[in-house]
């Protein structure tokens, strides 16, 4: 009887902690500012194509490089395409590729981190060395090397960034698992005769979710940074997408001529999205740390 009461009290406390955390998160101005920015771009990615005033892919050779006006709020580019519509629609590809890459990296990284943290020893040592070697290269350089070798496309960008993120995320997960490993519930499960897989994924994993969540949000910021930069360099999202990095690459040769609107608006779009995601991550990590 008393055991049941203790358990239900524990569950109740856990719920209160969770509710409290949620309240702290929702009250953080940093988190809210980030949520508004990111929410806006997600909305654009989802319904942008249906609501934009002008077809973002339609060229109009009579109105090339027209400055912002009532007809074209953000002006037109060198093919006469409406910059406003393209900025809105441009959210779609990066908000597909970057989250998928992050998801892939988080899934693989979590599995790798659980294995290295739980088993330790030679497995851990070997994988740590490999990870250190990969981390000696900047993300952009690794991605460039891999994308040249296998050819750039949306899916290869997802795979390459996902794989590069795997070791980084696995390090965070491993550290969290090491802290859990010595706790009583793990020994209890081992004594019960549970298998390693069960202990790793059913017992330990739920307890290391908060750091994984923070790491995932931080990585999403990096993924957007990387995808945008790779697209700008021509190794990321491919034409005819209205992607922001791609648009800036196409038009930045013209800014000497004073055609600022072709690049300024996509630049603001990229900046607001990455800043938004990082504000989310910052708010989340502060709330979970309390």
């Amino acid at each position: 009887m008393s055991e049941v009461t203790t358990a239900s009290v524990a569950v109740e406390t856990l719920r209160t902690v969770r509710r409290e955390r949620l309240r702290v998160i929702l009250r953080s101005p940093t988190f809210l500012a980030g949520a508004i920015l990111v929410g806006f771009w997600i909305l654009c990615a989802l319904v942008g194509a249906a609501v934009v005033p002008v077809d973002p892919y339609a060229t109009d050779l009579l109105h090339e490089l027209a400055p912002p006006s009532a007809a074209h709020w953000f002006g037109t580019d060198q093919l006469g395409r409406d910059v406003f519509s393209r900025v809105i629609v441009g959210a779609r590809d990066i908000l597909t590729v970057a989250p998928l890459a992050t998801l892939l990296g988080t899934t693989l990284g979590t599995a790798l981190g659980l294995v290295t943290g739980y088993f330790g020893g030679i497995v851990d040592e070997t994988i740590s060395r490999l990870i250190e070697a990969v981390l000696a290269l900047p993300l952009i350089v690794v991605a460039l090397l891999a994308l040249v070798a296998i050819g750039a496309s949306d899916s290869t960008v997802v795979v390459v960034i996902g794989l590069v993120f795997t070791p980084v995320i696995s390090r965070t997960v491993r550290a969290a698992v090491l802290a859990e490993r010595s706790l009583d519930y793990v020994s209890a499960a081992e004594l019960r005769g549970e298998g390693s897989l069960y202990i790793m994924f059913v017992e330990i994993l739920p307890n290391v979710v908060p750091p994984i969540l923070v790491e995932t949000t931080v990585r999403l910021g990096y993924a957007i940074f990387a995808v945008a930069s790779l697209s700008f360099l021509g190794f990321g999202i491919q034409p005819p997408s209205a992607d922001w990095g791609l648009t800036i690459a196409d038009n930045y040769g013209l800014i000497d001529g004073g055609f600022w609107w072709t690049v300024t608006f996509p630049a603001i779009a990229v900046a607001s999205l990455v800043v938004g995601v990082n504000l989310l991550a910052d708010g989340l990590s502060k709330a979970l740390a309390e």
Partner: protein
Amino acid sequence: MSGLRFVLRRVALSLVTLWLLSVIVFLGAQVLPGDVGRAILGPLADPRAVAALDHKLGVDRPLLVQYWDWSSHFVTGDMGRSLVYRQPVGPFLAAALANSLKLAAIAFLLVVPLGIFGGVVAAMNVGRALDRIITVTGLSMTVVPEFVSSIVLILIFGVWLEWLPVSASWREGAGAFTQFRHLLLPAVPLVLVLFGYIARMARAGTVEALDADYTRTAVMKGLPFRTVVWRHVLPNALLPTITVIATQMGYLIGGLVVVETVFHYQGIGSLIYNAAKAKDFPMLESGVLMIGVVYTIATLIADVLYSLLNPRIRFGGRE
């Protein structure tokens, strides 16, 4: 004694890292593309031409032989011949590295004092508006891709105000000041990205040191606050920042790829980018491996420096 052992251990680990890195780069550039000759000549090329090119490049030999050939030559400074320029890669790489070093040096000279100053000021005002402003601005600037900030800077300082040249190329034999003027604008995007990291570490270190017992003792014994900060807080606070500055080398080089491309500067970043565009695999491989070498050496120096400066590690030995 323990210090020497620590240094030797770190050097050995760095060598292992570099060896693994060379394997990864080799696999990336030689194995991943499948048929290198096919990748260079395109899908429509005659199979005989592809086979001939493969033979000429030596990529039809067993992998281990190729790896040994490439890595043993790299160590002796022979980095193969560029497929595009049909000349040895080494001199290109050396010139590019020297140019990048110039740009990186200007960026570091600007960002290290700025970042430390920002972080310390934030820590002195912890929790107040100034702290929030510095932290959020730093965080926001750090995450904006370099090509975005480059474009904005070019627009403002190059096109509108016409204060600074928008391209980092100058006429042969230009003086140091002209070179500096041309490199100032490309250095700023790198400064923006690095500022947040350095300021964050400096802030965290200072907050911790301000809270430490030795600081309280120093204040209680009546030392002027200025002396406490300079003599007791800062030396302890800024030690971890050294390591962060060195690890930022990696991000810095990643940033160079973008910045050098935007500003048309002939450094290691644009060398790798152009090699990638042209599928110049020998150039790409050597350039990427060189970046790994530079990064590994930088972190090694930082670790050793940290251990020399930190008495707890210097005298600690084994626990």
